[in-house]
Protein backbone atom coordinates (compact mmCIF):
# COMPACT_ATOMS: atom_id res chain seq x y z
CA UNK A 1 0.00 0.00 0.00
CA UNK A 2 2.80 2.37 0.93
CA UNK A 3 4.55 1.73 -2.37
CA UNK A 4 1.34 2.11 -4.33
CA UNK A 5 0.66 5.41 -2.59
CA UNK A 6 4.15 6.64 -3.48
CA UNK A 7 3.67 5.48 -7.07
CA UNK A 8 0.36 7.30 -7.39
CA UNK A 9 1.81 10.48 -5.89
CA UNK A 10 4.48 10.29 -8.55
CA UNK A 11 1.90 9.89 -11.35
CA UNK A 12 -0.38 12.63 -10.06
CA UNK A 13 2.50 15.05 -9.81
CA UNK A 14 2.89 14.91 -13.60
CA UNK A 15 -0.40 16.78 -14.02
CA UNK A 16 -1.70 14.23 -16.54
CA UNK A 17 -5.39 13.39 -16.84
CA UNK A 18 -5.66 10.18 -14.81
CA UNK A 19 -8.31 7.48 -14.74
CA UNK A 20 -7.86 5.02 -11.86
CA UNK A 21 -9.28 1.53 -12.31
CA UNK A 22 -9.30 -1.77 -10.45
CA UNK A 23 -10.10 -5.10 -12.09
CA UNK A 24 -12.00 -6.56 -9.12
CA UNK A 25 -11.37 -9.15 -6.39
CA UNK A 26 -10.29 -6.31 -4.19
CA UNK A 27 -11.60 -8.07 -1.08
CA UNK A 28 -9.88 -10.80 0.92
CA UNK A 29 -10.76 -14.34 1.91
CA UNK A 30 -13.81 -15.32 3.91
CA UNK A 31 -12.32 -14.85 7.37
CA UNK A 32 -12.95 -12.27 10.06
CA UNK A 33 -9.34 -11.16 10.00
CA UNK A 34 -9.40 -10.68 6.25
CA UNK A 35 -12.66 -8.77 6.54
CA UNK A 36 -11.09 -6.41 9.08
CA UNK A 37 -8.12 -5.97 6.75
CA UNK A 38 -10.42 -5.42 3.76
CA UNK A 39 -12.18 -2.64 5.66
CA UNK A 40 -8.84 -0.90 6.08
CA UNK A 41 -7.92 -1.58 2.46
CA UNK A 42 -11.17 0.04 1.30
CA UNK A 43 -10.51 3.10 3.44
CA UNK A 44 -7.05 3.50 1.93
CA UNK A 45 -8.14 2.67 -1.63
CA UNK A 46 -10.75 5.41 -1.49
CA UNK A 47 -7.86 7.86 -1.04
CA UNK A 48 -6.27 6.57 -4.23
CA UNK A 49 -9.20 8.14 -6.07
CA UNK A 50 -10.61 5.15 -7.95
CA UNK A 51 -12.91 5.98 -10.86
CA UNK A 52 -14.22 2.43 -11.30
CA UNK A 53 -13.82 -0.95 -9.64
CA UNK A 54 -14.95 -4.11 -11.40
CA UNK A 55 -16.89 -6.66 -9.40
CA UNK A 56 -15.04 -9.90 -8.71
CA UNK A 57 -16.50 -12.92 -6.96
CA UNK A 58 -14.34 -12.23 -3.88
CA UNK A 59 -15.95 -8.80 -3.54
CA UNK A 60 -19.08 -10.62 -2.43
CA UNK A 61 -17.23 -12.75 0.15
CA UNK A 62 -18.75 -10.76 3.01
CA UNK A 63 -22.17 -10.33 1.44
CA UNK A 64 -23.98 -7.54 -0.40
CA UNK A 65 -24.51 -5.48 2.74
CA UNK A 66 -20.78 -5.28 3.46
CA UNK A 67 -20.01 -4.48 -0.18
CA UNK A 68 -22.55 -1.67 -0.24
CA UNK A 69 -21.37 -0.43 3.13
CA UNK A 70 -17.83 -0.13 1.75
CA UNK A 71 -19.15 1.52 -1.40
CA UNK A 72 -21.19 4.07 0.53
CA UNK A 73 -18.77 4.70 3.39
CA UNK A 74 -15.67 5.11 1.27
CA UNK A 75 -17.25 6.09 -2.05
CA UNK A 76 -15.84 3.07 -3.85
CA UNK A 77 -17.25 3.06 -7.41
CA UNK A 78 -18.04 -0.63 -7.97
CA UNK A 79 -19.73 -1.46 -11.25
CA UNK A 80 -21.07 -4.59 -12.93
CA UNK A 81 -23.68 -5.20 -15.60
CA UNK A 82 -24.17 -8.94 -15.17
CA UNK A 83 -24.39 -9.77 -11.45
CA UNK A 84 -27.76 -9.52 -9.75
CA UNK A 85 -29.46 -10.74 -6.60
CA UNK A 86 -31.62 -13.69 -7.58
CA UNK A 87 -34.51 -12.85 -5.26
CA UNK A 88 -35.01 -9.28 -6.49
CA UNK A 89 -33.25 -9.41 -9.90
CA UNK A 90 -31.62 -6.09 -8.94
CA UNK A 91 -28.05 -5.58 -10.06
CA UNK A 92 -25.69 -5.78 -7.09
CA UNK A 93 -23.96 -2.47 -7.97
CA UNK A 94 -24.20 0.25 -10.63
CA UNK A 95 -24.68 -1.12 -14.14
CA UNK A 96 -22.14 1.34 -15.55
CA UNK A 97 -20.37 4.57 -14.69
CA UNK A 98 -19.84 7.71 -16.75
CA UNK A 99 -16.61 9.58 -16.06
CA UNK A 100 -15.41 12.74 -17.78
CA UNK A 101 -11.64 12.90 -17.99
CA UNK A 102 -9.27 15.04 -20.02
CA UNK A 103 -11.89 16.05 -22.58
CA UNK A 104 -13.22 12.52 -23.14
CA UNK A 105 -16.35 10.97 -21.66
CA UNK A 106 -15.70 7.41 -20.54
CA UNK A 107 -18.36 4.77 -20.05
CA UNK A 108 -17.10 2.05 -17.70
CA UNK A 109 -18.70 -1.27 -16.79
CA UNK A 110 -17.61 -4.75 -15.79
CA UNK A 111 -18.63 -8.35 -16.29
CA UNK A 112 -18.00 -11.38 -14.11
CA UNK A 113 -17.39 -14.94 -15.27
CA UNK A 114 -20.67 -16.92 -14.87
CA UNK A 115 -18.62 -20.00 -13.94
CA UNK A 116 -17.44 -18.36 -10.74
CA UNK A 117 -19.07 -19.59 -7.55
CA UNK A 118 -20.09 -16.81 -5.20
CA UNK A 119 -20.43 -17.75 -1.56
CA UNK A 120 -20.59 -15.31 1.29
CA UNK A 121 -19.90 -15.38 5.01
CA UNK A 122 -22.75 -13.02 5.74
CA UNK A 123 -25.49 -13.98 8.19
CA UNK A 124 -28.05 -14.26 5.43
CA UNK A 125 -26.76 -16.18 2.46
CA UNK A 126 -27.73 -14.39 -0.73
CA UNK A 127 -28.03 -16.20 -4.03
CA UNK A 128 -26.70 -14.41 -7.08
CA UNK A 129 -27.32 -14.67 -10.78
CA UNK A 130 -24.43 -14.07 -13.15
CA UNK A 131 -25.78 -13.38 -16.64
CA UNK A 132 -23.98 -14.24 -19.85
CA UNK A 133 -21.39 -11.45 -20.33
CA UNK A 134 -21.97 -11.12 -24.09
CA UNK A 135 -25.75 -10.81 -23.72
CA UNK A 136 -25.38 -8.38 -20.81
CA UNK A 137 -22.94 -6.17 -22.72
CA UNK A 138 -25.16 -6.06 -25.80
CA UNK A 139 -27.84 -4.51 -23.60
CA UNK A 140 -25.56 -2.25 -21.59
CA UNK A 141 -23.29 -0.80 -24.29
CA UNK A 142 -26.12 1.06 -26.13
CA UNK A 143 -27.29 2.45 -22.77
CA UNK A 144 -23.79 3.71 -22.06
CA UNK A 145 -23.63 5.41 -25.47
CA UNK A 146 -27.04 6.94 -24.86
CA UNK A 147 -25.83 8.26 -21.51
CA UNK A 148 -23.04 10.11 -23.33
CA UNK A 149 -20.15 7.64 -23.25
CA UNK A 150 -17.61 8.24 -26.00
CA UNK A 151 -14.85 5.83 -25.03
CA UNK A 152 -15.92 2.46 -23.64
CA UNK A 153 -13.85 0.78 -20.94
CA UNK A 154 -14.73 -2.79 -20.01
CA UNK A 155 -13.43 -4.45 -16.89
CA UNK A 156 -13.57 -8.14 -17.80
CA UNK A 157 -13.29 -10.22 -14.65
CA UNK A 158 -13.09 -13.29 -16.83
CA UNK A 159 -9.46 -14.31 -16.97
CA UNK A 160 -7.28 -14.16 -20.08
CA UNK A 161 -8.85 -16.62 -22.51
CA UNK A 162 -12.49 -15.69 -21.88
CA UNK A 163 -11.72 -11.98 -22.14
CA UNK A 164 -10.10 -12.49 -25.53
CA UNK A 165 -13.07 -14.55 -26.72
CA UNK A 166 -15.49 -11.90 -25.52
CA UNK A 167 -13.71 -9.23 -27.53
CA UNK A 168 -14.16 -11.34 -30.65
CA UNK A 169 -17.90 -11.49 -29.97
CA UNK A 170 -18.51 -7.91 -28.86
CA UNK A 171 -17.15 -4.90 -30.71
CA UNK A 172 -17.15 -1.21 -29.87
CA UNK A 173 -15.01 -1.50 -26.74
CA UNK A 174 -11.95 0.75 -26.65
CA UNK A 175 -10.12 -0.61 -23.62
CA UNK A 176 -10.51 -3.93 -21.81
CA UNK A 177 -8.95 -4.29 -18.37
CA UNK A 178 -8.64 -8.01 -17.65
CA UNK A 179 -9.22 -9.30 -14.13
CA UNK A 180 -9.15 -12.74 -12.52
CA UNK A 181 -5.69 -13.32 -13.91
CA UNK A 182 -2.24 -13.65 -12.46
CA UNK A 183 -0.69 -12.13 -15.55
CA UNK A 184 0.34 -8.58 -16.21
CA UNK A 185 0.41 -7.49 -19.84
CA UNK A 186 3.71 -5.76 -20.28
CA UNK A 187 3.33 -5.17 -24.02
CA UNK A 188 0.62 -3.54 -26.13
CA UNK A 189 -2.10 -6.05 -27.05
CA UNK A 190 -4.98 -5.40 -29.41
CA UNK A 191 -8.01 -7.50 -30.32
CA UNK A 192 -10.58 -6.09 -32.75
CA UNK A 193 -9.43 -2.51 -32.10
CA UNK A 194 -9.69 -3.05 -28.33
CA UNK A 195 -6.62 -2.48 -26.19
CA UNK A 196 -6.10 -5.29 -23.68
CA UNK A 197 -4.45 -4.37 -20.39
CA UNK A 198 -3.85 -6.13 -17.07
CA UNK A 199 -1.76 -5.68 -13.92
CA UNK A 200 -2.00 -8.32 -11.26
CA UNK A 201 -1.67 -9.75 -8.52
CA UNK A 202 -2.11 -9.08 -4.76
CA UNK A 203 -1.22 -5.46 -5.47
CA UNK A 204 2.30 -6.43 -6.52
CA UNK A 205 2.02 -4.67 -9.89
CA UNK A 206 0.44 -1.49 -11.12
CA UNK A 207 -0.24 -0.72 -14.77
CA UNK A 208 -0.16 2.54 -16.65
CA UNK A 209 -1.67 3.00 -20.09
CA UNK A 210 -1.27 6.24 -21.95
CA UNK A 211 -4.16 6.40 -24.38
CA UNK A 212 -4.86 8.91 -27.15
CA UNK A 213 -8.61 9.23 -27.61
CA UNK A 214 -9.99 11.04 -30.65
CA UNK A 215 -11.59 14.31 -29.70
CA UNK A 216 -15.34 14.15 -30.20
CA UNK A 217 -15.69 10.41 -30.77
CA UNK A 218 -13.54 9.07 -27.94
CA UNK A 219 -12.15 6.40 -30.25
CA UNK A 220 -8.82 5.04 -29.09
CA UNK A 221 -6.21 5.98 -31.65
CA UNK A 222 -2.95 4.96 -29.98
CA UNK A 223 -1.76 3.62 -26.65
CA UNK A 224 1.28 2.60 -24.73
CA UNK A 225 1.47 0.41 -21.63
CA UNK A 226 3.92 0.11 -18.78
CA UNK A 227 3.67 -2.26 -15.81
CA UNK A 228 5.61 -1.43 -12.66
CA UNK A 229 6.42 -4.08 -10.10
CA UNK A 230 6.01 -2.63 -6.63
CA UNK A 231 8.96 -4.60 -5.31
CA UNK A 232 11.38 -3.78 -2.55
CA UNK A 233 13.28 -1.38 -4.76
CA UNK A 234 10.31 0.99 -4.93
CA UNK A 235 10.03 3.84 -2.40
CA UNK A 236 7.38 3.85 0.32
CA UNK A 237 5.09 6.72 1.11
CA UNK A 238 6.15 7.49 4.70
CA UNK A 239 2.69 8.53 5.93
CA UNK A 240 1.03 5.49 4.41
CA UNK A 241 3.72 3.20 5.77
CA UNK A 242 3.03 4.50 9.26
CA UNK A 243 -0.69 3.96 8.81
CA UNK A 244 -0.13 0.41 7.60
CA UNK A 245 2.18 -0.35 10.53
CA UNK A 246 -0.32 1.16 12.93
CA UNK A 247 -3.09 -0.90 11.40
CA UNK A 248 -1.01 -4.06 11.81
CA UNK A 249 -0.81 -3.36 15.54
CA UNK A 250 -4.56 -3.01 15.63
CA UNK A 251 -4.90 -6.24 13.70
CA UNK A 252 -2.62 -7.95 16.19
CA UNK A 253 -5.01 -7.01 19.00
CA UNK A 254 -7.83 -8.23 16.86
CA UNK A 255 -6.03 -11.54 16.37
CA UNK A 256 -5.21 -11.96 20.02
CA UNK A 257 -8.89 -11.62 20.78
CA UNK A 258 -9.53 -14.45 18.38
CA UNK A 259 -7.47 -16.43 15.92
CA UNK A 260 -10.55 -16.43 13.80
CA UNK A 261 -11.05 -19.63 11.85
CA UNK A 262 -7.43 -20.65 12.37
CA UNK A 263 -8.00 -22.33 15.71
CA UNK A 264 -5.83 -25.28 16.72
CA UNK A 265 -8.56 -27.85 16.49
CA UNK A 266 -6.82 -30.70 14.66
CA UNK A 267 -4.78 -33.52 16.20
CA UNK A 268 -4.66 -34.60 19.82
CA UNK A 269 -3.78 -32.83 23.06
CA UNK A 270 -1.99 -36.05 24.12
CA UNK A 271 0.60 -35.76 21.37
CA UNK A 272 3.48 -33.33 21.03
CA UNK A 273 5.57 -31.79 18.30
CA UNK A 274 9.19 -32.46 19.29
CA UNK A 275 10.90 -30.12 16.77
CA UNK A 276 13.42 -31.12 14.12
CA UNK A 277 16.29 -31.05 16.60
CA UNK A 278 14.82 -34.15 18.18
CA UNK A 279 14.46 -35.77 14.74
CA UNK A 280 18.12 -35.09 14.09
CA UNK A 281 19.18 -37.40 16.91
CA UNK A 282 18.28 -40.42 14.78
CA UNK A 283 18.05 -39.02 11.26
CA UNK A 284 21.46 -37.43 10.95
CA UNK A 285 21.69 -38.51 7.31
CA UNK A 286 18.94 -36.13 6.19
CA UNK A 287 19.76 -33.22 8.47
CA UNK A 288 22.05 -31.29 6.12
CA UNK A 289 19.63 -31.57 3.22
CA UNK A 290 16.73 -30.30 5.30
CA UNK A 291 18.69 -27.44 6.78
CA UNK A 292 19.44 -26.16 3.30
CA UNK A 293 15.87 -26.46 2.04
CA UNK A 294 13.60 -23.41 1.52
CA UNK A 295 11.32 -24.84 4.23
CA UNK A 296 13.87 -23.75 6.81
CA UNK A 297 13.47 -20.11 5.80
CA UNK A 298 9.67 -20.15 5.64
CA UNK A 299 9.14 -18.12 8.80
CA UNK A 300 11.97 -15.69 8.14
CA UNK A 301 10.47 -14.92 4.76
CA UNK A 302 7.17 -14.18 6.42
CA UNK A 303 8.67 -12.06 9.20
CA UNK A 304 10.61 -10.00 6.68
CA UNK A 305 7.31 -9.08 5.08
CA UNK A 306 5.80 -8.09 8.41
CA UNK A 307 3.31 -10.94 8.23
CA UNK A 308 4.57 -13.04 11.12
CA UNK A 309 1.28 -12.49 12.92
CA UNK A 310 -1.01 -13.36 10.04
CA UNK A 311 -2.84 -16.61 10.82
CA UNK A 312 -3.64 -17.22 7.17
CA UNK A 313 0.11 -17.14 6.44
CA UNK A 314 1.25 -18.96 9.58
CA UNK A 315 -0.71 -22.05 8.57
CA UNK A 316 1.91 -22.75 5.91
CA UNK A 317 4.98 -20.98 7.30
CA UNK A 318 5.12 -22.79 10.63
CA UNK A 319 4.69 -26.33 11.95
CA UNK A 320 1.33 -27.54 13.21
CA UNK A 321 -0.40 -24.17 13.44
CA UNK A 322 -3.85 -25.69 13.11
CA UNK A 323 -2.98 -28.62 15.42
CA UNK A 324 -3.14 -28.90 19.17
CA UNK A 325 0.34 -28.24 20.50
CA UNK A 326 1.35 -26.61 17.22
CA UNK A 327 3.10 -23.29 16.63
CA UNK A 328 2.11 -20.33 18.73
CA UNK A 329 3.90 -17.04 19.14
CA UNK A 330 4.14 -17.69 22.87
CA UNK A 331 6.99 -19.86 24.18
CA UNK A 332 7.67 -22.73 24.18
CA UNK A 333 5.61 -23.34 21.04
CA UNK A 334 7.35 -20.55 19.18
CA UNK A 335 10.18 -23.05 18.56
CA UNK A 336 7.93 -24.54 15.88
CA UNK A 337 8.74 -21.82 13.39
CA UNK A 338 9.36 -22.85 9.76
CA UNK A 339 8.24 -25.99 7.98
CA UNK A 340 9.91 -28.63 10.11
CA UNK A 341 9.88 -32.43 9.74
CA UNK A 342 6.63 -32.79 11.68
CA UNK A 343 4.75 -30.39 9.41
CA UNK A 344 4.60 -33.21 6.85
CA UNK A 345 5.20 -36.31 8.96
CA UNK A 346 2.99 -35.57 11.97
CA UNK A 347 3.55 -35.59 15.73
CA UNK A 348 7.02 -36.73 16.79
CA UNK A 349 5.70 -38.41 19.92
CA UNK A 350 3.54 -40.67 17.76
CA UNK A 351 6.54 -41.62 15.63
CA UNK A 352 8.77 -42.08 18.68
CA UNK A 353 6.26 -44.42 20.26
CA UNK A 354 5.33 -46.63 17.32
CA UNK A 355 7.81 -45.87 14.57
CA UNK A 356 4.91 -44.80 12.37
CA UNK A 357 5.11 -41.68 10.34
CA UNK A 358 2.40 -39.94 8.47
CA UNK A 359 1.88 -42.10 5.40
CA UNK A 360 0.33 -39.27 3.43
CA UNK A 361 3.38 -36.99 3.79
CA UNK A 362 3.61 -36.77 0.01
CA UNK A 363 0.03 -35.59 -0.38
CA UNK A 364 0.49 -33.06 2.41
CA UNK A 365 2.57 -30.86 0.07
CA UNK A 366 -0.53 -29.60 -1.69
CA UNK A 367 -2.17 -28.38 1.50
CA UNK A 368 0.17 -25.39 1.22
CA UNK A 369 1.50 -25.61 -2.32
CA UNK A 370 -1.97 -25.00 -3.69
CA UNK A 371 -3.13 -23.17 -6.78
CA UNK A 372 -3.31 -19.79 -5.02
CA UNK A 373 -0.01 -19.82 -3.16
CA UNK A 374 2.18 -22.02 -5.32
CA UNK A 375 0.82 -21.99 -8.88
CA UNK A 376 4.00 -23.43 -10.37
CA UNK A 377 4.13 -26.36 -7.97
CA UNK A 378 5.19 -29.61 -9.55
CA UNK A 379 5.84 -32.50 -7.19
CA UNK A 380 8.94 -33.87 -8.91
CA UNK A 381 10.61 -30.47 -9.33
CA UNK A 382 9.89 -29.37 -5.78
CA UNK A 383 10.75 -32.73 -4.25
CA UNK A 384 14.21 -32.45 -5.75
CA UNK A 385 14.80 -29.41 -3.50
CA UNK A 386 14.20 -31.40 -0.30
CA UNK A 387 14.84 -35.00 -1.42
CA UNK A 388 15.65 -37.13 1.63
Amino acid at each position, binding site marked *: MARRAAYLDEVWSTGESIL*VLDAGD*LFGQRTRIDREQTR*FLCEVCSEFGPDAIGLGEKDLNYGVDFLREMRDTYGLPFTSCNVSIEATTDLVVEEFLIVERGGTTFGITSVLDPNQAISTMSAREEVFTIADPVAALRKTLPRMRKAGAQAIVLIAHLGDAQSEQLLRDVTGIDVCLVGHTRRSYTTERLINDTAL*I*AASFEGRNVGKMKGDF*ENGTGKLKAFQVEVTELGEGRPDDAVMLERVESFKLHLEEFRLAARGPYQPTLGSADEEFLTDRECRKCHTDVWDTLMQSPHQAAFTT*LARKGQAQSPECLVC*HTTGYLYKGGYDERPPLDRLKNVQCEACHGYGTQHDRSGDWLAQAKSSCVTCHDKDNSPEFDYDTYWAKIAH
Partner: protein
Amino acid sequence: MPLECDSWIFDWRALMRTSTRTALLLLAMLAVLAGAPQIPTSYADQGVDWNQVTLIYTGDVGGKIDPCG
Protein backbone atom coordinates in the same frame (compact mmCIF):
# COMPACT_ATOMS: atom_id res chain seq x y z
CA MET B 1 14.56 -15.66 -89.13
CA PRO B 2 11.96 -12.94 -89.48
CA LEU B 3 10.14 -14.50 -86.53
CA GLU B 4 13.28 -14.47 -84.47
CA CYS B 5 13.92 -10.88 -85.48
CA ASP B 6 10.36 -9.80 -84.42
CA SER B 7 10.81 -11.61 -81.15
CA TRP B 8 14.10 -9.84 -80.53
CA ILE B 9 12.49 -6.42 -81.27
CA PHE B 10 9.56 -7.24 -78.89
CA ASP B 11 11.91 -8.19 -76.06
CA TRP B 12 13.93 -5.07 -76.55
CA ARG B 13 10.85 -2.84 -76.17
CA ALA B 14 9.73 -4.74 -73.08
CA LEU B 15 13.15 -4.23 -71.63
CA MET B 16 12.87 -0.50 -72.25
CA ARG B 17 9.50 -0.35 -70.44
CA THR B 18 10.91 -2.21 -67.43
CA SER B 19 13.89 0.14 -67.35
CA THR B 20 11.58 3.16 -67.36
CA ARG B 21 9.55 1.78 -64.46
CA THR B 22 12.72 1.00 -62.50
CA ALA B 23 14.03 4.48 -63.14
CA LEU B 24 10.79 6.09 -61.92
CA LEU B 25 10.79 3.97 -58.78
CA LEU B 26 14.37 4.93 -58.03
CA LEU B 27 13.51 8.59 -58.49
CA ALA B 28 10.58 8.29 -56.08
CA MET B 29 12.78 6.63 -53.46
CA LEU B 30 15.39 9.33 -53.84
CA ALA B 31 12.71 11.98 -53.44
CA VAL B 32 11.49 10.41 -50.20
CA LEU B 33 15.01 10.11 -48.88
CA ALA B 34 15.67 13.73 -49.74
CA GLY B 35 12.77 14.87 -47.58
CA ALA B 36 10.24 15.38 -50.36
CA PRO B 37 6.53 15.22 -49.47
CA GLN B 38 5.97 12.03 -47.47
CA ILE B 39 3.00 9.79 -46.80
CA PRO B 40 1.43 10.64 -43.40
CA THR B 41 2.71 8.14 -40.80
CA SER B 42 0.40 8.83 -37.87
CA TYR B 43 -3.10 10.06 -37.10
CA ALA B 44 -1.55 13.26 -35.75
CA ASP B 45 -0.11 13.99 -39.20
CA GLN B 46 -3.57 13.48 -40.64
CA GLY B 47 -4.91 16.32 -38.55
CA VAL B 48 -6.78 14.20 -35.98
CA ASP B 49 -7.36 16.02 -32.70
CA TRP B 50 -7.06 13.82 -29.61
CA ASN B 51 -7.06 13.84 -25.82
CA GLN B 52 -4.43 11.96 -23.89
CA VAL B 53 -5.66 10.19 -20.75
CA THR B 54 -3.53 7.96 -18.52
CA LEU B 55 -5.21 4.87 -17.11
CA ILE B 56 -3.74 3.56 -13.86
CA TYR B 57 -4.88 0.05 -13.00
CA THR B 58 -4.50 -2.81 -10.57
CA GLY B 59 -6.29 -6.11 -10.18
CA ASP B 60 -6.91 -9.13 -7.97
CA VAL B 61 -5.56 -7.41 -4.86
CA GLY B 62 -7.34 -10.03 -2.73
CA GLY B 63 -7.51 -7.95 0.44
CA LYS B 64 -3.73 -7.72 0.72
CA ILE B 65 -2.12 -4.69 2.27
CA ASP B 66 1.27 -6.39 2.01
CA PRO B 67 1.98 -9.63 0.19
CA CYS B 68 3.20 -12.42 2.46
CA GLY B 69 5.94 -14.88 1.70
